């Protein structure tokens, strides 16, 4: 039965991911549908309903933004990255170091972090576009580990394993200070996430986003219609790195601390788990996955961290074997069955 040779391009196994589930009718528009509006009301409602969990809430929003950046390069451009934390960490250290040395204005810190991470992404993207899956995986992993080692060795600047403390933030617009109740941090993270999400949403629905989708579905055919695969991959990798940098900066600014684990492999791997848990290639998948993952972690990891890692691994295995589309894939399949019964 299974003795058929593997096909050279493993395309059929991907059914249930991203756009393949929704045949497109015409060009995408920027109009919001009711599910999207309902989705964004959830974090606003959470602000009023769960005032005691706002710290966890900002962590979720930041992880969601980070997962969004990976979705761009993994879900849309299908670049396998095992070292996306590199850009998250660069952003976190940029914002943290700026604030530590007196430049604690939050918004300029975000821009600086995005710029640093994007430049690093742009430089490394040339290594990424050269290779295939295995090479990409190795290069991203290697860059992440190199940065981890660098941060570890340069402890006079980064604080090494003890982390970077003494990060002092100024007030946003000179009005809203980061208080202990976490209200400012939550709303600040939510606002940044919403703005970046909208920009990303517009990006993937633009002609550029459509050409990324084309690269994902058939990389070899794209040059035939005059699209430069290389340039588009460089561009999307740079943008993804920049967004990851913003997420890192948010973490540094809201927690006023940068630990060396921002560069760790664990962070890259967990990020990937959040994304596939939510579903790749929808943008919303990363946000949903981050929320479910962080809440589960908050609940289960307190019981026993070792068991948590076991369940994490089992979850990943089960998703790959049985639920490849993630939560978003399941939701969209459900939506199709409920709203379009004529099949």
């Amino acid at each position: 039965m299974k003795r058929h040779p593997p096909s050279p391009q493993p395309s059929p196994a991907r059914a249930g991911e991203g756009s393949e589930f929704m045949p497109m009718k015409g060009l995408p528009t920027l109009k919001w549908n009711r599910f999207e509006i309902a989705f964004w009301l959830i974090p606003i409602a959470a602000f009023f309903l769960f005032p005691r969990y706002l710290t966890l809430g900002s962590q979720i929003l930041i992880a969601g933004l980070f997962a969004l950046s990976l979705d761009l390069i993994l879900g849309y451009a299908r670049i396998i990255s095992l070292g996306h934390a590199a850009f998250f960490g660069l952003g976190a250290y940029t914002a943290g170091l700026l604030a530590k040395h007196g430049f604690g204005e939050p918004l300029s810190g975000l821009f600086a972090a995005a710029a640093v991470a994007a430049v690093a992404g742009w430089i490394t993207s040339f290594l990424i576009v050269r290779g295939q899956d295995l090479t990409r995986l190795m290069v991203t992993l290697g860059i992440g580990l190199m940065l981890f080692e660098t941060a570890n060795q340069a402890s006079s600047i980064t604080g090494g394993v003890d982390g970077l403390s003494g990060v002092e933030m100024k007030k946003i617009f000179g009005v809203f200070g980061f208080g202990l109740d976490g209200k400012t941090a939550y709303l600040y993270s939510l606002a940044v996430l919403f703005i970046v999400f909208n920009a990303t949403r517009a990006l993937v629905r633009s002609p550029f986003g459509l050409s990324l989708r084309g690269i994902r579905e058939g990389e070899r055919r794209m040059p035939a219609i005059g699209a430069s695969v290389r340039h588009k991959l460089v561009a999307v990798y740079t943008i993804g790195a920049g967004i990851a940098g913003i997420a890192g900066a948010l973490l540094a600014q809201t927690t006023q601390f940068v630990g060396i684990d921002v560069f760790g492999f664990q962070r890259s791997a967990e990020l990937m788990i959040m994304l596939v848990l939510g579903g790749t290639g929808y943008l919303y998948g990363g946000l949903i996955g981050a929320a479910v993952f962080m809440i589960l972690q908050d609940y289960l990891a307190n019981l026993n961290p070792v068991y948590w890692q076991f369940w994490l691994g089992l979850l990943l295995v089960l998703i790959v074997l049985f639920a490849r589309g993630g939560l978003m894939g399941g939701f969209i399949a459900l939506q199709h069955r409920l709203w379009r019964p004529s099949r």
Partner: protein
Amino acid sequence: MVTSFIGVLFDGLAYGSLLFLISIGLSVTMGLMNFINLAHGAFAMLGGYAAVVAMSRLGIPFLPALAIAFAVSGAVGALLERVLYRRLYRAAHLDQVLFTIGLTFMSIAAATYAFGPAQQPVRLPPFLTGQVHVLGLDLGTYRLFLIAMVVLATLALTFLVERTRFGAQVRAAVDNQQASVGLGINVERVFSVTFALGSALAGLGGALGIDVLGLDPTFPLKYMVYFLLVVAVGGAGTIRGPLIAALILGVFDVAGKYYVPQIGSFIIYAVMVLMLLLFPAGLVGRRI
């Protein structure tokens, strides 16, 4: 100066040959089925724990314990291949990566649960400890033993692949799977056997390496990069490529940590990125 250089070179070779022994199974998996297996280190760890349990709890001597490590890892590899891995041969690389990261996490948690987070000690038999004087140099006996074991394993493996009927089937399957199936070769069975053999060799390497690499539950993650590196740099699906790559990596890593300890393992990652840039398809070109 010269003596210390030769000492470093020797340690690097011993270290590299150990990496080769563990990684060769990964090379076959990638070459034969184009499968990215990030959980390969877990089989090496399993072999290590099997040897430790055999020696400390059952009182079995070192050399038979190595054989037990080989057998246990091979058996578990064969079982997992049947039950799990086989489902994913045709899946996208991303799925394989996620799946094997999941397995790695599970193996780490399971090892912590069973053996605790501490490093496992190994008591080497007296005839393998101490130093030997060769041409005025002091060489560690255990390192010499390691190199000898790996030379033996490589010779046996080369004989298996180059001279036997099974080896011819493996080579045919790597070269052109479709044509091999057409010629009546049972590629599925070839793969099962090679996967089990690769896992068994990894287990042997893990058991041999307790003294050099250490053994604790984070082993699969700690050395994952090294194993992948050997295969990616050497080129999957061959024996010669990973051997050369493993020796180069071993020497560079040991030399880097000895001469410039400040930048520690930085060197190995730099060498890796450089090698992947210069030889995107591996030192010995991939044939698939």
